[in-house]
């Protein structure tokens, strides 16, 4: 079992493996564990440090500092500056996500086949088989009723009352204790993020992990990927450490996320018309509801209820989200005494979100200091969807008994009562009026039938190169309309099976 963390400046660290996996999140963890099970020697190279549950922070300040990529400072460049959130730690974004697990809908494989020339039923069957297995491995289950918490319960009862599809979310969490701290990392060790089982399994099977090790470049010999290089970075002091060189006998699998994978490939001189293209997202906005009784967001599954009623038409998803006090302080509009008076109501607030299945497309490129640049603006049709979704969330709150809702949209009054809903229905469609975040990301290294429509083929192999495969969210040419980690993991496990087949 080898784990190499930050190494001070000195002689370079040089290692060799059958496969290198860059990144240890949903894609990286799943592909690496799949390869290791097949007997391959895997080196996982991860930019972030390895934090165990006892190291996880509690406050959101600590979470920004210790768990998120660049303190969540990556913003979309476009009409509006919306934060793009990702993890930077062993386990990647799975460490800080809400653990929601949704199978890839069949229509996704059909749309990939129709529009990008790969996928179809054959791929669907393979991915679903992996998802069957993953669901067992990761203890995918519903949250127990006594751990749901009031906000989730209210949303669930209300969907039954309104006749709107709504369900208890299935999550990769074993016996959730309802501590509402998924975003900070699950200190109770219930959430099955990839750092808990998949990455340790790689080590148990003879692989190695380099943490605090951001890959700067993929090494090429001709058009063959033969390794990766970079320099260790200390997670606290940011001090640059020793150089590392990892060589791969069979191939390099890139799983550094939708923003970092395209940036890394560009930095490494990889050419491809579709590199950095087809970046998509499910931009989300939150609507607060104010209730008469105690909601107590810090208790309950961080996300426990969801509705897929509007996934296809008009194209949005509804979810609950228990948000810590610190984030609510930033989220509630205004400042000064009025803001503080509003914050007194924290315990009576429930926060529910709309995630828009946006058709808008952006790009990702490698910026200065290796930072990705994301260009993305939601078009007016998508903004209308987001607004419709926000209205739907507000209606759900009112049906649940909320006294008022707080949409936080510029130009809409702070507090709306049921009779005032028209203010939200007519809210501006300018993205600048909305506070949205991007948590579900897609594309940047899309798969496609040929280099005109994709950077990679249907097996994630980068066109024109050998031994170079992409296995994270960046390979998806469309968004899903459901939470992505299960699809990413299913595809990644399929990549592992194909790579093992190639070398046998």
């Amino acid at each position, binding site marked *: 079992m080898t784990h190499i963390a930050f190494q001070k400046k000195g002689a370079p660290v040089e290692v060799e493996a059958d496969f290198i996996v860059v990144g240890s999140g949903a894609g990286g963890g799943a592909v690496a564990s799949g390869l290791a099970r097949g007997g391959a020697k895997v080196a996982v190279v991860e930019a972030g*440090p390895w934090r165990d549950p006892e190291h996880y922070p509690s406050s959101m300040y600590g979470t920004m500092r210790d768990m998120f990529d660049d*303190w969540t400072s990556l913003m979309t460049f476009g009409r509006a500056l919306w934060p793009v959130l990702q993890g930077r730690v062993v386990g990647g974004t799975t460490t800080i996500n809400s653990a929601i697990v949704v199978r890839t809908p069949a229509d996704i494989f059909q749309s990939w086949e129709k529009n990008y020339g790969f996928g179809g039923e054959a791929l669907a069957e393979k991915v679903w088989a992996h998802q069957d297995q993953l669901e067992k491995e990761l203890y995918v289950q519903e949250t127990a009723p006594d751990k749901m918490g009031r906000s989730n319960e209210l949303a669930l009862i209300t969907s039954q009352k309104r006749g709107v599809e709504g369900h208890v979310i299935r999550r990769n969490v074993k016996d959730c204790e309802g501590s509402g701290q998924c975003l900070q990392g699950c200190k109770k060790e219930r959430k099955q993020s990839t750092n808990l089982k998949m990455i340790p399994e790689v080590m148990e099977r003879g692989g190695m992990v380099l943490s605090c090790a951001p890959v700067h470049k993929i090494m090429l010999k001709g058009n063959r990927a033969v390794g990766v290089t970079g320099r260790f970075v200390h997670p606290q002091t940011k001090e640059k450490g020793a150089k590392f060189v990892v060589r791969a006998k069979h191939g390099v699998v890139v799983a550094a996320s939708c923003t970092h994978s395209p940036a890394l490939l560009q930095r490494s001189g990889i050419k491809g018309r579709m590199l950095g293209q087809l970046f998509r997202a499910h931009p989300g906005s939150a609507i607060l509801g104010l209730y008469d009784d105690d909601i107590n967001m810090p208790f309950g599954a961080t996300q426990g209820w969801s509705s897929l009623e509007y996934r296809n038409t008009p194209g949005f998803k509804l979810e609950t989200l228990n948000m810590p006090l610190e984030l609510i302080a930033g989220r509630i509009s205004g400042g000064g*005494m009025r*803001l*503080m008076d509003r914050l*007194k109501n924290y315990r009576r607030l429930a926060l529910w979100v709309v995630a828009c299945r946006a058709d808008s497309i952006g790009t990702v490129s490698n910026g200065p200091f290796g930072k990705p640049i994301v260009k993305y603006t939601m078009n007016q049709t998508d903004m209308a969807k987001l607004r419709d979704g926000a209205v739907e969330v507000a209606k759900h709150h009112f049906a649940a008994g909320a006294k008022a809702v707080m949409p936080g949209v510029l130009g809409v009054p702070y507090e709306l009562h049921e009779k005032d809903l028209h203010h939200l229905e007519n809210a501006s469609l300018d993205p600048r009026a909305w506070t949205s975040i991007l948590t579900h990301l897609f594309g940047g290294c899309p798969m496609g039938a040929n280099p005109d429509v994709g950077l990679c083929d249907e097996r994630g192999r980068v066109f024109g190169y050998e031994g170079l495969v992409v296995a994270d969210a960046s390979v998806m040419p469309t968004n899903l309309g459901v939470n992505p980690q299960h699809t990413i993991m299913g595809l990644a496990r399929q990549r592992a099976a194909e790579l093992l087949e190639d070398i046998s």
Partner: protein
Amino acid sequence: MSLSPTVYVMRLILPSVDGLKGLDQVDVKGFLKDFNREAPLPMRLTVLLGSWAFILSPIVTLKIPLPVFLLSKKLQDEHCYRIALTRVYLLRQLMFAVKAVAGFCWGKCPEVRAQLDLKPYAPDTGGFRQ
């Protein structure tokens, strides 16, 4: 204004009210010391720029060409409210950044949490596997 601009501004954004402690009763200086040591430079600069923008922008919100520290308490509070909702996008975003960081400081304060009947947070050790 004898304080650093950011401490001064954050205390105005989240002041104490009846029944709830604000940043005037929280160790913002200590928090900012950590923040300035730990946060990436662009983020620190954004917060500093946002603080100065807050101080100098009563002209935008109240049409008063004075820095905020020369205003009455009541006008300071009015400015604080309006600036968060200004139509000038970049200014609003800067304010959002300052407010978000102020929120991190305020929301983790054990006394504030106790007032809202929330459990105190365990320390953020920053530990990792060596």
